[in-house]
């Protein structure tokens, strides 16, 4: 919201320093987002009359203009064409420095000398209009040679751009900001100049008003102005509108906008002759009705809304023939617009239900200055005061106009002002400091709260504060107001402490260890998109239910990922294309499974009031790696897994090849990671299908991968930690035997190793060190060679002891059909 300080000063005396003022505004939560100095540098600009316009030889874009500015004729080169002899325009003489620091100098071009510059309104920083010179005779009675600032009645000004929070409907006006400042500064808040209705014929003899939908329209006032002459606003009012960032349109429309900006009450203005029976009626729109709003768009009304909580309700203003005149509180219709021929004006100044306006505005995609105010809550008691101010402003250009007596004022359902009790203890409990009772009362009364009693106080919120609630919630609202006006920066700071220790959860600790481990193993952690597209995910698992976003930013970012593999391959490929492909990329992130296909969909509540039972996607945290270094393949992926598992103390997960490998993975080089015993799937390891690699990259390389389900992994590591007791190694010598077995292909190497581990108490470790396949072995078998290490805790093993263990190992292996290789 842009506010010229000159306007603010009408209501409250301000500190001289702009810096001081903006600091105060910031501290009040009225954050200043910009400060603009306007009208500065116009001191030297004067009013000049155009006396002659001539072409310049050889120039077709500029002409030579002779002007009179009081000191005799001046020749000036000018590029604008919107003027003629006799017009009055602003002249910046040689030596003037315009806003923005543009210095005017004498210049010679094409043999003629330009002695200054004729200016547009934009060049002077007075408006956005740059369609030619600022034609002064259209707006004032100009006097040659007069200072422009004097002629326009403007003084240099400062415009602050304030961001008003959503819970401060009262602050969305010049007076509202002034009220905060007056309270903070302990200064008087001045009231605007208003007028009373003329003692003429009563309004009811000319116009009528009705409220058919009291829940939607809490108050409807109808005023009539007769004998209005529509024309431009007086310059100082037009300038206020302009400085506030709006366009000056006509004195009537400007008065409406000025009142809205100044007091916060939007009003609707109608040409009374275009409103049948001069009747305004607020009612619900009916399905099938439509309205062409002032922006030229046809709006279909009372259409069921799609959004949550949207009832499809629209409040409209209709006339005596039940024609829709406007979308109440949002935008008027084109049919009853004020025009130059308008003489009688109906002013609608009303209160509309904030939620109705919010829903209509959202549904119609139509956010206006009026709707933004109504949806936050306009002061319901402001309606007629705003009209009184409206009339006072319009009367400046319409001294003869009549405001018919006894304006119509109809009531619907109005919000009840919030009440709450408040004690000094409440404030201390919330803020951690006791504030003087007199300070509290002064602040609240400055903000127009009604405070009764000597404490605890009975507090009633002013009608402008529809954001303030009743009861305990309202107490918090009021305490915020006290703290805000007192100054957050003056409040103390304390450091609380509590007996409970700070800590990470077990899962969080394991997650950290896992991340550290993979980083130590050379992984570069990537952040790949959560939102992707069907084509990508089809590369791995075609079809199937996927979690979709209703309103994606782009059509290829509409599906929540169910795997990180494609994203990581793309990330790797991008680096590989830059010559940086010798890298493992990985991500520790979440993938999403649609409730229809998820093993563990999440049940929760939602909908209005949180009473609807909803089934949400399963969110599965995973570690996914893509190994793309030169020489990386399924083996290095398995080795990587081995290192991770060892580091995390996981021993019971085995690598099991599968025959039916999912799409996208190498059919003969992909294995599952399975927890022995429970057969729980922990993840997958291996190589990506060369076809997938060809599709996504330009590289001729094998890509290894590891994809681990962290939910499973965390359970395993938690088990590992709980059961973890340390063994002190034997002090006696260690014996090592190497044994090679001929083993059926179907027997897993880890299973045999496990059998060997269990064969004798003294076995400490079993390590596979060679695998041989060849013609010398029977069909369907291979040779697995293990290195078995053992020692006794209480003696040096004799040769016969060793032989016994060896025999036990061989016997145990036979249990799996493994024969010692001869």
């Amino acid at each position, binding site marked *: 919201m842009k506010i010229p300080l000159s306007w603010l000063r009408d209501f409250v005396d301000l500190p001289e320093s702009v810096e001081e003022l903006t600091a105060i505004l910031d501290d009040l939560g009225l954050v200043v987002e910009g400060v603009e100095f306007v009208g500065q540098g116009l001191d030297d600009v004067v009013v000049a009359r155009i006396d002659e316009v001539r072409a310049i030889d050889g120039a077709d874009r500029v002409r030579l203009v002779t002007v009179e500015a009081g000191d005799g004729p001046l020749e000036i080169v000018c590029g604008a064409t919107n003027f003629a002899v006799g017009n009055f325009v602003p002249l910046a003489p040689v030596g003037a420095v315009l806003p923005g620091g543009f210095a005017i100098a004498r210049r010679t071009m094409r043999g003629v000398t330009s002695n200054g510059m004729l200016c547009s309104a934009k060049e002077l920083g007075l408006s956005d209009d740059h369609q030619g010179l600022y034609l002064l005779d259209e707006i004032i009675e100009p006097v040659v040679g007069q200072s422009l600032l004097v002629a326009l009645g403007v003084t240099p000004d400062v415009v602050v751009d304030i961001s008003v929070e959503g819970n401060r409907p009262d602050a969305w006006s010049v007076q509202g900001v002034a009220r905060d400042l007056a309270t903070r500064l302990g200064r008087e808040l001045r009231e605007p100049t208003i007028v009373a209705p003329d003692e003429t014929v009563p309004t009811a003899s000319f116009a009528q008003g009705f409220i058919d939908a009291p829940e939607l329209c809490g108050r409807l006032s109808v005023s009539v102005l007769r004998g209005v002459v529509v024309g431009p606003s007086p310059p100082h009012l037009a300038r206020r509108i302009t400085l506030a960032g709006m366009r000056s349109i006509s004195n009537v429309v400007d008065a409406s906008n000025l009142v809205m900006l100044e007091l916060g009450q939007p009003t609707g203005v109608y040409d009374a002759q275009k409103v049948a029976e001069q009747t305004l009626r607020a009612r619900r729109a009916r399905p099938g009705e439509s309205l062409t709003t002032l922006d030229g768009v046809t709006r279909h009304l009372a259409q069921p809304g799609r959004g949550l909580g949207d009832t499809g309700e629209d409040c409209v203003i209709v006339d005596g023939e039940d024609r829709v005149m406007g979308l109440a509180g949002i935008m008027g219709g084109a049919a009853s617009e004020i025009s130059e021929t308008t003489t009688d004006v109906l002013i609608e100044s009303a209160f509309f239900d904030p939620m109705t306006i919010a829903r209509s505005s959202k549904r119609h995609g139509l956010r206006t200055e009026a709707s933004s105010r109504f949806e936050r809550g306009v002061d319901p008691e402001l309606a007629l005061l705003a009209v009184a101010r409206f009339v006072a402003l319009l009367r400046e250009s319409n001294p003869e106009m009549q405001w018919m007596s006894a304006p119509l004022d109809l009531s619907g359902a109005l919000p009840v002002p919030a009440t709450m009790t408040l004690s000094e203890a409440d404030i201390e409990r919330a803020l951690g400091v006791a504030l003087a009772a007199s300070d509290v009362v002064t602040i609240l009364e400055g903000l127009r709260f009604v405070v009764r009693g000597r404490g605890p106080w009975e507090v009633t919120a002013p009608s402008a504060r529809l954001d303030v609630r009743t009861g305990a919630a309202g107490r918090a609202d009021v305490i915020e107001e006290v703290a805000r006006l007192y100054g957050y920066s003056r409040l103390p700071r304390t450091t609380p402490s509590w007996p409970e220790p700070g800590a990470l959860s077990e899962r969080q600790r394991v997650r950290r260890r896992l991340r550290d481990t993979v980083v130590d193993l050379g992984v570069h952690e990537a952040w790949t998109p959560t939102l992707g597209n069907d084509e990508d995910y089809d590369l791995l698992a075609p079809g199937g239910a996927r979690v979709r976003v209703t309103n994606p930013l782009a059509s290829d970012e509409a599906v929540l990922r169910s795997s990180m593999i494609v994203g990581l391959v793309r990330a790797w490929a991008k680096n590989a294309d830059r010559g940086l492909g010798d890298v493992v990329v990985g991500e520790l992130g979440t993938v999403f499974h649609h409730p229809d296909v998820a093993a563990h969909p999440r049940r929760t509540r939602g909908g209005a009031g949180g009473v609807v039972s909803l089934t949400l996607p399963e969110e599965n945290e995973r570690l996914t790696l893509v190994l793309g270094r030169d020489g990386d393949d399924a083996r*290095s992926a398995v080795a990587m897994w081995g290192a991770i598992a060892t580091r995390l103390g996981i021993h019971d997960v085995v690598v099991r090849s599968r025959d039916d490998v999912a799409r996208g993975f190498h059919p003969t080089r992909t294995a599952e990671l399975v927890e022995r015993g429970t057969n729980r799937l922990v993840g997958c390891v291996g190589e990506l299908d060369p076809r997938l690699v060809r599709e996504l990259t330009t590289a001729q390389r094998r890509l290894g991968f590891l994809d681990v389900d962290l939910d499973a992994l965390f359970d395993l590591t938690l088990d590992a930690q709980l059961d973890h007791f340390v063994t002190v190694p034997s002090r006696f010598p260690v014996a090592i035997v190497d044994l090679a077995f001929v083993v059926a292909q179907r027997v897993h190497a880890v299973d045999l190793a496990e059998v060997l581990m269990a064969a004798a108490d003294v076995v400490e470790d079993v390590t596979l060190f060679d695998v041989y396949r060849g013609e010398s072995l029977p069909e369907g078998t291979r040779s697995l060679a293990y290195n078995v290490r053992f020692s006794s805790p209480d003696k040096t093993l004799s040769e016969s002891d060793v032989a016994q263990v060896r025999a036990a190992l061989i016997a145990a292996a036979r249990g799996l059909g493994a024969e010692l290789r001869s």
Partner: protein
Amino acid sequence: MTTSPLAELSTHVSQLRDRIDGAQTLEQLLEDEVFIIGKRSILSTLQKSLGALAPEDRKDAGAQLQGARREVEGVFAQRRASLERAQRALAIEADRLDLGDVVVAQVALPLAVGHPGIVAATQRQLEDVFVAMGFTVADGPEVESDWYNFEALNIPPAHPARGMWDTFYVDLGEPETVVLRTHTSPTQIHLLEDAVAAGTLPIHSVMPGRCYRRDTPDARHLAAFHQIEGLVVDRGITFADLAGVIETFTHAYFGADISSRLRPAYFPFTEPSAEFEITCTICRGAGCRTCSQTGWIELGGCGMLDPAVFAAVGVDGREWSGFAFGFGIDRCAQMRHQIADMRALIDNDVRFLRQFS
């Protein structure tokens, strides 16, 4: 009258089919392609000879020849696909590796240094500061119902305050009931509900995590981003405690010469609410372009838990009070490491990743 050039067509077709079937390898088939369906195929020769026909015969003959060509091409494509399948099957079979038999000791993994993501690294630093201050860390889901993301946080359906967040809706349930969380605040509600159900109040937790806003990415924003949220609910907690915690954190994370200040703001779930600003980390408070010469930059939002939130989760506001705060993890990283363009975070360029350890 001359004989039609197509008199022998069916014989040609059958010969071509034989030739296709005769190819035993993909290479062989592809070498032969030019003779079977390419420029040097008998079909192409016949095509040229059609020019000699009378116009009225040419159309029929052309159609006939086209039919034959389609037939041969179809057979060729089938054969090709089948040979490709066979070849791939051979290659895949030749690749066969029993991953259970991998001798890990024989795999030489290169000695390499990896790098954590900057977001993860920053999140860890932040968590460490808060854990040292007595906080636990809680995780929460990224897909939430509107109850957790909005309504329990005092943002009812259709309330204009929902417009403060550009929300991605998920295609589940009734429209607008399932969202990608727009902030980490829904995790507060989960914690509060769980603590009330289990009778385990107080809570002193921070909740880091990924959030989403439907905002076109630019140098300062990404549609997906990370926040960390803090929640303290205990007996006798005040606004002064909130200001103190923010200040302690600011010193601990940004350094002793960086301090914090609060200024009034609006969040539906806190009352009183505040934005918190810290001394500009670029100019250390002297004033620069980044902080618009103010010496301060905005970091996040905070406030005392709104009574409506307590009511939604069933916490007795007469016994308990609390505060919450939240700010961007990515933004902390951006400020601390002066990352000119946030989009670098999702480019995954290893030249970027290698700068963090």
